[in-house]
Each structure stands twice: as structure tokens, then as C-alpha cells.
């Protein structure tokens, strides 16, 4: 069973704000979900290789060459705040 402290901890790790009122409802829902998830613990999986890709894909490597042209303007057109081709964020170093 998760606790309210667990919910606050994972919410912080995930950078999700949860108000005090939401914490109890979220806790109840997460505990329902984990009660369902616990069913998988009853299967013996000793010696079973974890499956990450259905067909055991290997990571391909490509030649280390430039394949893209400069698309800075295109790639920045959705930025919430920018200047001189740079993404702007609040000051982090005083």
C-alpha cells in the first residue's frame, strides 16, 4: 500500500503538482491500480529473460555524418519564449 507521503514523493519526482485535497483521491486510485498490478506477483518468473522488444531488436548504428540541414527557425517556431535563436527560461543563476 502506498501512503500519502509516497504520492507526494513521486509527484515531486515527476514534477506534477498535487494539492492537499487531491492527494487523498490520488492515493486511493493509485492503491486500486497497484492492487490490480499485484496479481502478476503470483507467477513464478525465475530464469525468465525480461522482454524489452517483441522481436528482440538490436540497436542500429548509422554512419556519423550530418544528415539534416539547418532548420533552427522551423524547430523554434513553437517555443513559448525565445530571443536571438535561443530558448528563454527564468533566470537560474543569480
Amino acid at each position: 500500500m502506498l501512503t500519502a507521503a509516497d504520492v507526494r514523493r513521486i509527484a515531486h519526482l515527476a514534477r506534477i503538482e498535487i494539492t492537499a485535497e487531491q492527494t487523498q483521491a490520488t492515493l486511493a486510485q493509485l492503491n486500486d491500480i497497484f492492487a490490480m498490478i499485484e496479481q502478476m506477483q503470483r507467477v513464478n518468473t525465475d530464469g525468465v529473460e525480461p522482454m524489452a522488444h517483441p522481436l528482440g531488436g538490436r540497436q542500429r548504428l548509422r554512419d556519423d555524418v550530418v544528415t539534416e540541414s539547418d532548420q533552427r527557425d522551423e524547430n523554434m517556431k513553437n517555443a513559448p519564449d525565445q530571443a536571438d535563436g535561443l530558448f528563454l527560461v527564468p533566470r537560474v543563476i543569480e
Partner: protein
Amino acid sequence: MSELSHATVAELGRLLEAKDVSAVELAQLFLKRIDAHKDLNAFLDVRPEVTLAQARAADERRARGETGPLLGVPIAHKDIFVTRDWCSTASSKILKGYMSPFDATVVANLKEAGMVCLGKLNCDEFAMGSSNENSAYGNVLNPWDKTAVPGGSSGGSSSAVAARIAPVATATDTGGSIREPAAFTGVTGTKPTYGRPSRWGMIAFASSLDTAGLMTRSAEDCALVFGAMLGFDPKDSTSLERPREDFTRSLNDGVKDLRIGVPEEFFGAGLQDDVAVAVRAALTEYEKLGAQLVDISLPNAELGIPVYYVIAPAEASSNLARFDGVRYGHRAADFAGLPDMIKKSRSEGFGAEPKRRILVGTYVLSHGYYDAYFIKAMKVRRLIADDFQRAFTQCDVIASPVTTSVAFGFGEKASDPVAMYLADLYTVPGSLAGIPSMSIPCGFGKKGRPVGLQLMTNYFEEAKMLGIAHAYQQATDWHRRVPEGY
């Protein structure tokens, strides 16, 4: 003109080839229908001028002598695929107004084949959901019964194809998001082998499961469009290096002596009678066509939901970490410093279900729980996949219901996440294994709502599976039924 809107992709291609209709006329017809059926809320972004420009380009290609079964045929894209010319939001507030600098590979492939895009389709936020109730842009209605959900997450795709406001639509399936909505709306919904369609430009949910597919009016239509849509893409690190295929090659193979595996676990408690009756009748139809039924067992399939709700949220929590209000997407208006800006932007931008899954995923990946949950789930995932391989030594195809019930009503499961998750009970095992699977209409259940039959074949056997579905669709007309008023 209504008959034209009811035509299949195959039929539209022949009419275009014969110059009986132009791409521009088809685009106009469907744009008009989209507008007339706005209440379905299937579309999130429609830009007639862009659609018509694409249609004119297709007509010019034909005028220059180019041919092709898809050249000039309209299609609509689920809003999980990014597009240069329409907004790409994943039905989330966090991506409101986002304009992609590029087209997803799937979108580009279909455009290359000459398909004309009608716009972007509503879905559950980040493809997380089974009813389309998780969209930040409102519910999509089921044209068979407007009090019923259209299924999810590809609810805009299923509703649009069922209502004949698009002849075909792209969709995506992570745990059942093509097959479940297809079943709920009486259309043909197909998910190919994981890794065959490119994930490049598909807004990521759970990368080891996300698979692009289609909502169509027939298995034949799916075979035609898959031919242009699927193929190796070097830009997707898990794309499989397989040559392009003609997916229509097995359409007329028939089902004589075909062994259809019937898994007892998919007909147990929880399956409602109306669905069971329709599915059993479909199996009897296959026997009449010369197939034989074989009892099989998928003993670990019932663990699909628990396994899925570890793996998918874990991958989602990692994928959705990119939304930070810095490079694109929603940024909060009021904040105190950078960490607060990121936290507030995410909290305002994400809806309840993505937040819930991010939290579950963060927990199962966190220190001390990784082995107990994430690694354990990956091990059980292999047991589930192994069950399928054992079953395919006894049969050529597996048949089952797609869902335990017909489409449920709005609000019925919205407040109970676990009840909603169980809507994918029969579809999740195939997703975890990564095998091709599809839903074909096989009748109607309670309140006249459609029922789907699920077919599953082994890896890379899409053409065979579509042929098996086609045989059924040659003998029955469930897939040709149109909801009243459309």
C-alpha cells in the same frame, strides 16, 4: 452523392482510375460531410484549403499519367501523428496549437502514395484511454448511438470511419486503441506487427508497444493502404528491416482447412452474453467456410492488464518528461523560478489520466521498486508472448471477442480507472506480444451496438490475417452496415 461516401477505398480508387470522379470532388464531398456531422466531434483540425490543394496535386499526378490505387483517395489522421499543415496536439492541452516542423513517416508515406488528408482526428489524451473521454477537446460520439462511447483511444478515427465522414483513418494501438474502438463502432481496425510501421513522428506514449494501424471499412481496404504505409524507417530505432510487401496477396486464399484457435481464457466469466453469441456465430460461419476450430490455451493472458499497467505507464512517464514548457508546448503564466515553471506548466497542461499514468510509471521505476515491478512485468510479458508461440504450433490464427461488452455509456467507467483499464482485457495480450491483430464487425449486441471479432496471427502474417478477415467479409455484410442517418 451519398453512395460515393459509402464506397470503400478500393472502390474509390477504381472510380478515380476510370476518371468517374476527381480527387477534388472526393475531397469536397468528405469535407462537406465532416461539416454536416460536426456534432460527432471526431475532427480536431480541418483546413479545407490545404486538403483541396493536396487533392488538386493528386489530380495533376493522374493527369500526368501516374496511377495507383490510393492516388486521390481521402484519409484522416489520428492526432497522434504529427503533421506540418495541421495542428498536432495528441488531444492534450499541453500541445494546444502545436505546429510540427515535419510530417510523421506514416503521414509522409501515405501522402507520397497520393492520399489526400482531410484533417486531424480526436483521441484520448496521449492515446491513454478506452472511451475517448480523456480528450482535452471533448467527447467523440458513437454514430450508432450517441449515448455510447466510440471507444478509445482512437475514438475519432473509429467514429469518422463508422459515420462515413472519412473512407479510412490512421489510428494507433498501444494496448487495444485500434481494436476496441473498431469493435464499438462496427469498423475494421487493424494493428500490424510491432516495428513494421514507423514510430517517427508518432507522439510517444509507450515506445515498446506503440503501433500505427488503420480504421477501414474492409480488410481489403486495410491491405491496400498498408502497402503504402508500412516499411522500414531508419529514423525509428525499433523499426524492423523488412522489405515492403503487397498485403493484398492473400486476400483470396480462402479459409479451407484453416485451423482457428479458440482460447478458452477469452470466453470466461466477464464476457457478456450478447458479445459471446455474436462471436460464436462468427466462428460457426468460419466453419461453414471450411475452417476448423481448435481449443487452445493462453494461460498467462489474464495477467496482461497488470503487466501492461506497469510497462506502459513506466514508458509514458519517461516519454512525457520532455514536456517542460521550455522548447514547445504550454508554459504556465505565473511561476517562481525554473523548477516551478516546469512543475506548473506540466500540472496545467496534462489531464488527469496522463498524470495518473506518469505517477504510476514514476513509482514503478523509482529506487527500490524497479525490480519488483518493472523487471517483473517484463518477465511476465515474455511468458505471455511465449503462450502465443505455443498456441501457433496448434493453429494458424486465433479468434476471440475484442471486448467483454458492447460500447458502454458516457460516464459509466470514467470515475473508476481500473474498470476502464479492464476494457482492454482481450486486446492487451496481443499488444504485449507485438503480433498483428484486428477487429472485424460480426454483428450487434444490446441496444443495437456493434460487436467485434478479434483475429490474431503470428509475427509478419498481416497478409494472411487480412485474407482470413476478407473471406468472412465476402460471406457476410456486417462491415457494410451503416448507422442510420449516415
